[in-house]
């Protein structure tokens, strides 16, 4: 188990390193364009050269990469070109806001989709199953931006119940959080539900469930003790990986609702070619994704006695 953990962490670090190298290659291999992005299109060649020299850009590529990486690891991401402040100063608060959004979404998605998935998978082919399955297909077919438009139309335009933007200028507001969360839940729960359903219905068809029923156990015990234990292993992984998807979703939602979060920041940075901010945002996003993936793997191994005691 320990070896597995070490190996998994090793892979994680290696992945991060490769990703960082890719990003660095993509964004900073051409030093001239870096200078243009920093100093603006109206700078002269001499000015650019001066800046490059002052910031160590004339060193060989690998020296620059390792310096950059070293700074990165200690949390020095450089300064944002657009906001003219250290990247960390804007990144961390934005990440916090997105954390709240993501957490709120997961708190709805997890119980909802596990519950629906288990209900549907318990009796495959029943009316309830078909309803839940088709329902979850329909909701995953509506992209976030579309459901944002539709939900806004209903709740903001026709019912006038909720605010149409969530900029939270006057501090944190649950009311403003509700529409973004609704949009994310609507798009995300369907997938987890269907995965849970698949896992549950597969377990319900196994021979050991038949054994449990024919032992004379009450149906409730069969489901709670025998089925769920095995059926929820796969959805656990799916939920952990869903965090990766959620990071995509928040970009759209934050953009639409003007929510001051990490996703909107990344988008803004990309559209403005704010390379240091892009690097930091991308690395953070990849870190979150890789970390949850590692957690999912480790958790899967822990939950599965066949691997745990192999």
């Amino acid at each position, binding site marked *: 188990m*320990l*070896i597995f953990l070490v190996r998994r962490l090793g892979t994680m670090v290696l992945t991060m390193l490769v990703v960082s190298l890719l990003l660095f290659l993509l964004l900073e291999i051409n030093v001239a364009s870096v200078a243009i992005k920093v100093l603006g299109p109206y700078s002269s060649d001499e000015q650019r050269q001066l800046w490059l020299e002052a910031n160590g850009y004339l060193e060989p590529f690998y020296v620059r990469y390792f310096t950059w990486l070293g700074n990165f690891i200690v949390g020095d991401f450089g300064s944002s070109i657009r906001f003219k402040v250290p990247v960390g100063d804007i990144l961390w608060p934005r990440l916090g806001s997105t954390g709240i959004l993501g957490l709120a979404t997961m708190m709805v998605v997890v119980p909802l989709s596990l519950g629906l998935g288990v209900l549907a998978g318990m*009796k495959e*082919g029943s009316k309830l199953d078909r309803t839940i399955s088709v329902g979850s297909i329909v909701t995953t077919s509506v992209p976030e931006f579309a459901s944002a438009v539709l939900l806004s139309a209903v709740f903001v335009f026709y019912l006038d119940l909720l605010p149409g933007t969530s900029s939270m200028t006057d501090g944190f507001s649950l009311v403003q959080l509700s529409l973004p969360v609704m949009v994310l839940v609507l798009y995300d729960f369907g997938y987890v539900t269907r995965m849970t359903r698949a896992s549950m219905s597969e377990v319900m068809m*196994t*021979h*050991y469930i*038949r*054994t*449990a*029923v*024919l*032992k*004379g*156990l*009450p*149906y409730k*015990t069969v489901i709670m*003790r*025998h089925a769920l*234990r*095995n059926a929820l*292993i796969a959805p656990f992984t799916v939920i952990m990986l869903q965090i990766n998807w959620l990071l995509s979703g928040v970009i759209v939602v934050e953009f639409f609702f003007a929510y001051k979060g990490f996703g909107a920041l990344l988008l803004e940075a990309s559209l403005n070619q704010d390379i240091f901010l892009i690097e930091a945002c991308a690395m953070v996003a990849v870190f979150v994704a890789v970390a949850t993936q590692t957690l999912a793997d480790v958790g899967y191994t822990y*939950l*599965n*006695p*066949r691997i745990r*005691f*192999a």
Partner: protein
Amino acid sequence: MSTKQEYEGPILECRNLSISYFTRAGEIPAVVDFNLTLEQGGSVGLVGESGCGKSTVAMAIMQYMGSNGGIVGGQVIYKGRDLATCSEEELRQLRGNEISMVYQEPMASLNPSMTLGTQLMEVPLCHEEITEKEAYDRAVQILADVNLPDPERVMASYPHQISGGQQQRVVIAMALLSNPSLLLLDEPTTALDVTVEAGIVELIGEIAKKFNTSMIYISHNLGLILATCDRVNVMYSGVVVESGSVEEVFDHMRHPYTKGLFSCIPLPGTDKLAHPLVPIRGQLPLPHERPSGCYFGPRCDFFEAGRCDQAMERGTTPMHEVTGRAGHTVRCERWSEIDWESYKPEGVVAHPSERGHEVLSIDNMRKYYELTDNSIGAMISGKRVRYVKANESISFKAHECETIAIVGESGCGKSTFAKVLMGLETATDGDVMFNGKDVAELPVQNRSPEQVGSMQMVFQNPFDTLNPSHSVGAQLARVIRKFGVESDPVKIENRVMELLDLVKLPRDFARRRPRQLSGGQKQRVGIARAFAGNPAMVVADEPVSALDVSVQAAITGLLMDIQHTYRTTLLFISHDLSLVRYLADRVVVMYLGQIMEQGTTDEVFAPPYHPYTEALLSAVPIADTSIQKKRIILEGNLPSVMSPPKGCPFNTRCPRKIGDICETQVPPFAEDHPGHIIMCHIPMADLRAVDPVIVQVDKDKSAAE
């Protein structure tokens, strides 16, 4: 434990039971007009080929039919109660408590993420008012009763941590925990190796005595029914065709199907010339295509038009009592008219073997796999590379037109051996001379098309042997082109037709997809494919073990016939000793990658035996009442190939172990006659003195059959 009320009278009665499945295609009758009476302490066997409805009966007794199955007629009466009238809650109290079940796949029947202890304890905890402590103690006790060593350790284990045989013992223990009145066993040993099977069969016999439990034993194997039951129902296509005491049915069968079934299985003491197998012609009808009248009619030699195909009130022919034989019933209109004495059906063609020149000579072949151990412990000790000895010191010869059987249980190295021969793996050491050329280190890519074509394989699993995406003809044509037999498209097409003729399949099968073929037909195509390149040698890896017995007989016959015509050497890998006895000229017995014994079939099947051969022979279930066997039950588990025992590989389970020498020194190859080699420390004189395992007790009786 004795909360159950006493009940006089039969434990279980099935009256005119009919069961159907409902699919999109409509109602499919699975079982029709099934009757059964099981007395206290009695044991009844249900035997038949796949698709005959025997497992469906078990599930109907459990009232567990799934969403698309249902009882459409008749009753299941347990201790006087019609189970159809029971509520879900009443059924729940019966299941596991009064009626319990043992399943075919022990691993799949146990919950992989719960300890065995929890799974055992929940049975009494849910049926009786007892404490956890009492439940634990009882579980430990019952594990000891099914002869599991170290019950406490088993209680704390997960299913994957114990072997298949042990898992099945746990499932049996689980079934016995509440001391049920009725035990259903559905093919409980089919997934197990033959020596492990022998242990389970013995345990089932003990249980019957010890707990006075009534049993229904479901199996496709007549030999197992003989070993475990006192009554038997023979099923065919959803109906019981013959029912009676085991002795009656085995010795005086009246139904042509029962007779046919027995003629399909090779019995020990006979070979292909003295007692050729008689396959049942035709195919099992699909449930919705059953003929009117007798379902066996179209395949029966005694079929009488206008009488046997008469539509009947119950859908098929009714059961008739065999006069003068109490309790023996048969579903045949003509049972009393058939003259079995003068019935001499034509068996499969068999030829005496004519040995030709030497084709294959293997000398001291070894195959080791390297395993890299990445654990920290291994890194520290520096022993990172370990060797798995898949094959060790393999030596034997095969001649033209000869049939060599390689016998052994799972993990004995048969498959590795086949891979080395075919060139998918290369030998670590030693020689493999094939047609005078050493192919030991010649991978298949480096062999010439003639070399590849002259050594081909027939595979085990008919459902897997043909590529489902390509037509039969295309697959055969590819082989012909690949081996350079023909290159002209018309000639290839003609050759495909010849091959189909050779395996007795209609020519239009060339256009068919594999899924349109039955298991036996696919296996015929597999044989045709192997013979496409006019091979000098064919390796057949368990070619019939996945088939029903009536199909087995036909495929075995076909294989032997083609082999004789082409004078091919046949390397027949099998675990079925009866079949090996029937068709092989020489036998090689393998255990954990090594040859334990080899010799002619007669030499291997008679003393002196290697102790492993002896155990293997005694483990084979034999469907003949006139045969008596020695009982040798091997203790312990099959050791892992990863860490084989030192010295003699068999020493951990050997009942004839003579001392430390077995554990420390690799035994020598002792020769009894020239060619009969036994790898054992026991002096040959002692081995010669051993009694034969299989003895025919009543000659007259078996001669009459």
